[in-house]
């Protein structure tokens, strides 16, 4: 056995107290805890802390280039590591749009500059169409070569089904997954609010869940017809869960994500017109929350994602209808989803799978499963640490979250990437 450089002692992994041994930035071994001496190794006492593989977020908006006042790559990645994430996939709606290799290269360069000694890995998502305009395909091969991990038009889904088909076909040749933000734009003239009782009383323009489900159905049929994989972003409603379950029974190659806010909030949060509750797709009903949780349990929903969408305070502090959609999520996602474990709504195994194995396998990203040779990306987590989410303890520039002021349970105590302590 090589000599360990780092030993994490008496951490809890899968219910057992273990020692984690790291050498050359990789996992050397995980062994039952002992008092063995490791000469020359840094030893970190971790009794009572949970050992977790670093998380992967397949859906963030880092805003750079173009909107650095909301977030830049450095601040976004800083929030990520404090939130427990080592792999970050960022969407293409920057300015300029990430629809060519030059922008992709620049994003990767800035990530490297932010953490020159090694930090969280950035995997840009390239635009499916040039300028996200939904008219011409982007040069996906050159972007894949430059480092894009997937392709998506995200917030500006392609209206033209024929062009979407061609985007799937062309994109599949690169070997990178296609991600779709499911929303029929004709059925969704207004964004950020669910069409339902609350929108009706508040007098807000809204979109029905059918706007999401109709496009989920289109994508599933397309994926089946083309026999290609499709990844469906931020699923928010029962109708979509039902359709995905139907497709999975038919062995359609589909994976799907949902976000913490769709599991912990409903449209009722919009009372009072708090623009931090405005998110696209919108917060839905208690029935939708129930369906999403059931979908997580039975494997219909494969993974979590934050849909981290930071905005500046002055952009959100306007009339609700004028406010941009989005919740800043990287700082709080872990604690929020941990509450689902603490409340017995999902198991610990599901929690870990949804943030690690499932996204890494779907998007072919580095995964630490604590096997010898895996990247030593892990964090120590105190499940009993209570803290209040506020503007000061958020590392993202975006403080726009409806959970601000809430007491959260569970926090990252330290985070190691390739065996180096980052937090």
């Amino acid at each position, binding site marked *: 056995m090589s000599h360990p450089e780092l030993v994490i002692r008496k951490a809890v992994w899968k219910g057992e107290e273990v020692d984690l041994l790291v050498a050359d930035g990789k996992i050397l071994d995980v062994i039952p805890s002992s008092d063995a001496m490791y000469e020359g190794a840094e030893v970190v006492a971790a009794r009572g802390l949970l050992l977790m593989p670093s998380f992967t977020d397949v859906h963030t908006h880092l805003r750079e280039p173009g909107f650095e006042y909301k977030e830049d790559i450095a601040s976004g990645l800083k929030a990520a590591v404090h939130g427990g994430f080592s792999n970050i996939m960022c969407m293409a709606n920057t300015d300029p749009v990430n629809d060519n290799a030059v922008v992709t290269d620049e994003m990767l360069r800035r990530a490297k500059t932010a953490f020159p000694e090694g930090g969280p890995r950035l995997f840009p998502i390239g635009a499916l169409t040039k300028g996200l305009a939904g008219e011409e395909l982007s040069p996906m091969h050159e972007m894949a070569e430059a480092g894009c991990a997937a392709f998506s038009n995200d917030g500006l889904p392609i209206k033209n089904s024929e062009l979407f088909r061609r985007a799937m076909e062309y994109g599949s040749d690169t070997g990178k997954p296609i991600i779709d933000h499911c929303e029929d734009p004709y059925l969704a003239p207004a964004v950020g609010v669910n069409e339902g009782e609350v929108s009706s009383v508040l*007098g807000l323009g809204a979109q029905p869940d059918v706007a999401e489900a109709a496009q989920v159905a289109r994508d599933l049929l397309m994926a089946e017809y083309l026999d290609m994989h499709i990844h469906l972003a931020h699923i928010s409603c029962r109708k979509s869960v039902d359709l995905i379950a139907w497709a999975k029974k038919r062995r359609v190659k589909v994976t799907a994500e949902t976000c913490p806010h769709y599991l912990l909030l409903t449209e009722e949060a919009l009372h*009072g*017109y708090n623009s931090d509750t405005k998110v696209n797709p919108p917060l839905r009903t208690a029935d939708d929350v129930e369906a999403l949780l059931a979908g997580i349990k039975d494997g219909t929903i494969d993974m979590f994602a934050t849909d981290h969408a930071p905005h500046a305070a*002055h952009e959100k*502090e306007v*009339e*609700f209808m004028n406010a941009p959609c989005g919740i800043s999520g990287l700082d709080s996602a872990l604690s929020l989803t941990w509450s689902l474990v603490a409340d017995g709504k999902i198991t610990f195994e599901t929690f870990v799978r949804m943030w690690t194995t499932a996204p890494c396998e779907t998007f072919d990203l580095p995964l630490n499963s604590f096997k010898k040779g895996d990247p030593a990306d892990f964090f120590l987590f105190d499940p009993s640490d209570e803290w209040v989410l506020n503007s000061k303890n958020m590392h993202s520039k975006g403080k726009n979250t409806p959970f601000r002021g809430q007491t959260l349970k569970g926090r990252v105590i330290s985070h190691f990437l390739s065996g180096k302590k980052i937090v």
Partner: protein
Amino acid sequence: MEWRHKDLLDVTQLSKEEVQHVFETATYFQEINSRPVKKVPTLKGHSVVLFFAEPSTRTKTSFDMAGKRLSCDTFSLAKSSSSLTKGETLKDTALTLQAMNPDGIVLRHWASGAAQFLAERLDCSIINAGDGRHAHPTQALLDGFTLYQEWGSLEGKTVLILGDIAHSRVARSNLTLLNKMGAKVRFCGPRTLLPPYIKNWDAEVYTDINEACKGVDAVMCLRLQLERQQDGLLPDLREYSNYFGLGHKQIELANPDVKIMHPGPMNRGVEINSELADCEASLVLDQVASGVATRMALLYLYLTRKK
């Protein structure tokens, strides 16, 4: 009654007793409006900004007149003449106004929730003069006051609200107020102009105007925004008028003493037959007169509340 509210955002905030108190106060001020000299010093030394970020004739004039009759200084600000047109945010415009230390701001705004947005940020009273599709509490109070003056009580009466319910803040606020005061509410309009989930509202819903009019004590017509045709919600105004406009035939189905109301401005010949708008049963101009008295009552209650 000691007035405990800082702001008037929606009639949901008011208890039945408080609405009744507004009616009684408005009755008192109505009398002032019939005097040869229609001015009293009640609010002398107070100031109110009439901030109208959306076009308005009657609501703005009504508040202006109400304020002036109580010797309150009123200052008008329209979106077109404010820094909102230069890109200033609503928050900054409002903070600027507050720095001038008015006692109240009467706000008309196209965005639902705008009045609440200001109320949460400013110390002075905010009176919602219509926010998006959400609420128009002073219109509901003046409509209720108009009927209260006619009937003495709204208890047990049935009021039909007819037309574009989906986009109407008047319909939403009137539903709440009329229910609160013991009246039953019916809504009628084409399905495209009824809000989703209306089945959960405390109202009977019709798409057949003749069925809806049977036995009602009052019909409130709502203005049809003519662009609804371009929005794809209506085929054309002719068909709308024929199937959903209030005409003589429908009035004959209502109670003999039916009252006809309209918050204005009216599209004569579209949502209401022109003769009906002017007939004896029409309370359209009474609503305007009641509006001044009701707004005098509201300015008085909100500006003189114990702080």
